[in-house]
Every structure is written in structure tokens, then in C-alpha cells.
């Protein structure tokens, strides 16, 4: 039979019950779909906090059953002109800032001469830190340099800020350390 454009137009949908618009049998696909466990993750743009390169990252998150947002994965943003999808090993593991199997949830203390670590309370740890800082500061505080200039500085303690610091945390840390007279301040973001 010769077919005209009209004739072609008369070939309508051929879908049948349980089939697609072209008549493919969907029974098996429906069975597979019912066995599949698919979940959604939301994409968000962010920046690697570790150094001044400022690589762009894509974070995958999802809302957990308890309503909290869970971070699932972090990877380089292939659209970024800065890093074009690449991350250095530090950035590639930045997920561990939020989620890590190896996170130490409690202060650990190794007493002088001891071979192992013991769990201690936050009170013990903060008190110990304060005492050690005071002792080091008292022992190494310099009021005058070799030429007699007043300097009032602590040369026996150095401080390194974490690259994951917020601006506010960085400000607070700098204020505190300068208040103690420290001059050796560094930031991981510059390393």
C-alpha cells in the first residue's frame, strides 16, 4: 500500500495495557523498578577550605530520616576555571572534616614517659593545656631584645591555625595568641 503523509499521521499510539507508547512490554521493567532502591542526593557548590588556591568543590548531601543534612560526597567541580574538576589529596579528603571513621571523639593524653594514650576529660585537657602554655610562656617570655628595645614577646610557643577555621575563629585565635605575646603565628591555608 502506498502511504501518504496523511497515512503516516494516522499511525497513532500503539501502546497496550502494560506496554509503552510504542508497544514495548514493560512488565519486566516494572519488576526491576520495584526491586531498585534509588535515593536522591542534592548538589551544592562550595570551596575547599584547606589552602589559598580555593578549589571549587561539589558537595552531595541528603536529608536523613532524622531531619539532619548528611554529607555524602565531595569532589572537584569540573566547571571551575580554578581547578577544572581536580583536587589535591588534601582537598579530595575534605569530606573527613565532617565525616570520618577515624575522628577522635574525646581528648587523649600521653603522660611524660608513658607508652600509650589514655582517655581524659575535657576539664583535665583544658586545664593541662592552660598550665603548659603558662609554664612555657613564663619560661620563654622576652621583655627586651639584645639591643635593649622593649619587645614583650613569647618566643617559646608557636601557633598554627587550621585551614578549616571560619573568619571568626581565625580572628579569635589571633587575638588570643597576640594577647599572650606570641609572634610565631601561621595558618594552614598558607602552607
Amino acid at each position, binding site marked *: *500500500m*502506498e*502511504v*501518504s*503523509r496523511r*497515512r*503516516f*499521521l494516522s*499511525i*497513532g*499510539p*500503539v*501502546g*497496550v495495557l502494560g*506496554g*509503552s*507508547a*510504542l*508497544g*514495548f*512490554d*514493560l512488565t*519486566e*521493567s*516494572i*519488576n*526491576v*523498578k520495584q*526491586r*531498585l*532502591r*534509588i*535515593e*536522591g*542526593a*542534592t*548538589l551544592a*557548590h562550595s570551596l575547599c577550605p584547606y589552602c589559598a588556591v580555593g578549589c571549587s568543590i*561539589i558537595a*552531595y548531601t*541528603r536529608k536523613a530520616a532524622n531531619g539532619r543534612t*548528611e554529607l*555524602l*560526597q*565531595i*569532589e*572537584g*567541580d*569540573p*566547571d571551575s576555571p580554578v581547578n577544572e*574538576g*581536580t*583536587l*589535591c*589529596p588534601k582537598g*579530595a579528603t575534605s569530606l573527613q572534616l565532617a*565525616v*570520618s*571513621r577515624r*575522628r577522635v571523639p574525646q581528648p587523649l593524653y600521653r603522660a611524660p614517659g608513658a607508652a600509650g594514650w589514655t582517655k581524659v576529660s575535657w576539664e583535665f585537657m583544658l586545664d593541662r593545656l592552660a598550665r603548659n602554655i603558662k609554664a612555657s610562656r613564663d619560661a620563654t617570655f622576652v621583655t627586651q631584645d639584645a639591643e635593649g628595645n622593649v619587645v614583650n614577646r613569647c618566643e617559646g610557643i608557636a601557633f598554627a591555625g587550621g585551614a578549616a577555621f571560619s573568619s571568626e575563629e581565625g580572628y579569635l585565635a589571633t587575638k588570643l595568641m597576640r594577647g599572650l605575646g606570641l609572634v610565631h603565628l601561621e595558618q594552614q591555608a598558607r602552607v
Partner: protein
Amino acid sequence: MYGQERARALELRERYPHAREVLGLYLALVDVWESADPGGVRADGGSVPSSGAGEGRGAAPGGNAWLEWAAAVVLPRVMAATAAHGPRPLAEAVGGVGAGDGAGLLAAWVAGEELTPVERFLARATMRVVPVERRPESAAGRCPACGGPPQLSYRLASEDPLVSGRRMLACAACPHEWSFSATTCPNCGESGKRTVHAEAHANPPAASPEAGSASRTGPYVGRHGPVPEAMFPQLRAESCESCHRYLIDVDLGRDPGAVPRVDELAAVPVDLYMAEQGHTKITANLMGF
């Protein structure tokens, strides 16, 4: 080009019984395309030449000549392959019908006219080996070569595990593929509300004190390997929460042997899932999914 598609379709037809019908018809069409397009003249998506190029095209002088050639040479073969290898309702609808004003049908498809699903299928299957005219101006998310909508998205494999491969889109109307933002909806341009739908553990591992909060329960996305029991390790769907459209995304990093246009056809269960979630594919594929 066709060899790769054929090999992958054969492989997936064995792996996915649910896609046997779809891939069986696709394999028959691959034979048609290969026989009608021996020179692979569409590979560059080039403009219509002024004279016939390639065996079987006769003295096609350009203009609508490609459509006439396709209607006379390719369409009857597509119809015969469909009648022989398509699902019964489709085969019956197509069988016994001669190729009358096929050029009119193809012209209507090129012009973007409303067609029935069967007409659309015949036109698309036929036009696979016909050069399309280039349209230099094209909207974002549309094919830079012909202006057609994206059929699917895929991620390039990267040899370095620290590097995320670029995202590519493949055109639904021509063989062109182009790089596109990994986090922007090709349909509406939204870049803030993207959701990736991927397989998760059917039986999530119980959280142990050792694993802490890092015990893996959510969808396996990004550079993560797939869930061990994944049925579609190389596939996921990407949807936009603004326009509720989606594309199947094929990750060549997870399966370097994947052929995106073939793998996308096997994703029918994922398509059904997405429809259930209220999402519509940006454009249905050749087989209407």
C-alpha cells in the same frame, strides 16, 4: 561507531532481560544505519552537501534531497527492520505500510511538528544517518550544532581518581555531543536545585561504633564506586527541582565500556522510577522512553 554500539547493545541485552525487546530492535536499526551510512558522513554533523556523497545516495543534489533520499532508501529499511524486530503492536502498525510521502514525514519531524509516537520513532530512526543543517545560534542547553534538545548526559572517565570528569550532553536530534556545566539544568538553566538519583544499599549496613557516622547508607554518588549489588552501576538520573525535568546520566568513570546512547536505552526501570517521582525526561529517547 556502529561496531561499538552493536557490541554494547549485545552485551546489555544479555545483562538486562528487561531491555531485550528495546535492544533487539536497536540492533536491527544499527544494521540499517550501517548499511545506509557506509562512510559515516554524519559523524561530524556537517551540513548538507551539494551532491551525493556515499553509496546509495545517488545524485542527491542537496536542499531537500537528503530527505527524499532518506525517505526512499532509509525509511523502508527502518520500517522493514521494525516490522521484523519491533514489539508486536509496533511491528503490526508499521508492517504492510509502504513508504509513501516519507519525505513529508521527515520534513515534518525536522520542522518540529507534532507527530504521533510511531511517526516520531520512524522519523528519528531514519534521520540518524541524514546530515542536519547546522544552526550556529543555539540556546544554552541545546545542541550547538543543530539546536536539538539533549538526550542524555554522561561523565567522561578520568584516569586520576582525584579528578572529576567533565559532563557531556548528547543531542537527541543529531550525533553531536558537547560539554555542559555539571551542575546546571540543561532544560531551564537552574543551577541551585539539582538532585542526583542513584542506587543505594538495599540493606544498609548497620552503623557500628567503629564506622561511626560514616557508615554508608545514602545513594552512591560522585566518585564513589557503585553499591556492590548495583543493577545499574554506570547509570543515575539527574533532575531539576525547578522544572522537574531529568536526564539519564552515564558515568564512564564507573564503566569505561559504556556507550551512552545504548546504555540510556537500558535505563527503563530508572525512567519508570523518575516518572513515579513526578519528573519528565527532557526529551524521550528513540524508543519513546
